[in-house]
């Protein structure tokens, strides 16, 4: 029996490789052994998988809820004033 294993912090660094399917077999087995018993890392994986799917959708379709033009102008103005150090208005 090998005592190789990964801990949560290591999984956090490997999570995107795992989702990309870009992980060599020995590492993959360690990761899945860890995932099998770690609720926190499974939740974390679910979160970044969901985030990746949402971002991919947004890239495909553009923003789904674009603000109306006047609202957009107000937001851009407030953003510029904030960058210049002025009050948000």
């Amino acid at each position, binding site marked *: 029996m090998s005592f190789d294993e990964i801990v949560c912090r290591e999984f956090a660094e490997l999570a995107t490789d795992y989702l990309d399917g870009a992980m060599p077999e020995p590492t993959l*087995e360690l990761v*899945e052994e860890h*995932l*099998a*018993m770690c609720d926190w890392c499974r939740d974390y994986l679910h979160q970044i998988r969901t985030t990746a799917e949402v971002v991919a959708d947004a890239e495909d379709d553009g923003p789904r809820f674009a603000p109306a033009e006047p609202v957009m102008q107000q937001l851009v103005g407030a953003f510029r004033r904030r960058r210049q150090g002025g009050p948000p208005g």
Partner: protein
Amino acid sequence: MIAYKFLCAGGLGPFSRYAWPLPRAERPGAWVIAAGDATLCATAVHGCRVADLPWWLQDELWEAEFDGAIATGRHKISAPRARLVRRVEGWDAGCEQRFADACARRARDHAATALERAGDSRSATALRERATPVDIVRATRELDPPETARVTVAMAGDGATRARNGHAIVAAYIAAQTAARVGGPDAAGAERAWQSGWLGSELRLRS
């Protein structure tokens, strides 16, 4: 090759969330076929032998047929295709809890051994007398173990806590880690073998 597959409730793959085709009317489920080269884990179908079971506990246990070139990993097998044959009905919440409790008692015994080696036989005896996870947790909190046994006793308490909460897979892991702390890597291997033996015997599985 007949081997086993742990799935989440509803026949879902625990990592892929793939919905496995379930057997119907005593006929096996449809074959699940890997996308590519079965020697590459990401594209193979995975399962486990009886000896691998303690690493992969989930809600449902299925007997499965694996076909083609079988690759063997540390604690799993993979093949180009597999199908579910039958559910192992004996693996349910009650069985999982009994297994968790058994693992908690094993970790307790390893901690008691550590106490004896540290010269605290009285605490070792007191700990061994506790049988349920609740009582083991209480005992590990009441004891004031010698420094050399302190971590092992705390680990036994953690294992019992996880067992009490129904986390059998973690209780099993902690039992193996506790064994390793007392007896080294070989003891951990023996602990895992004991666990798979318990599961195989309780569930009458084919080795």
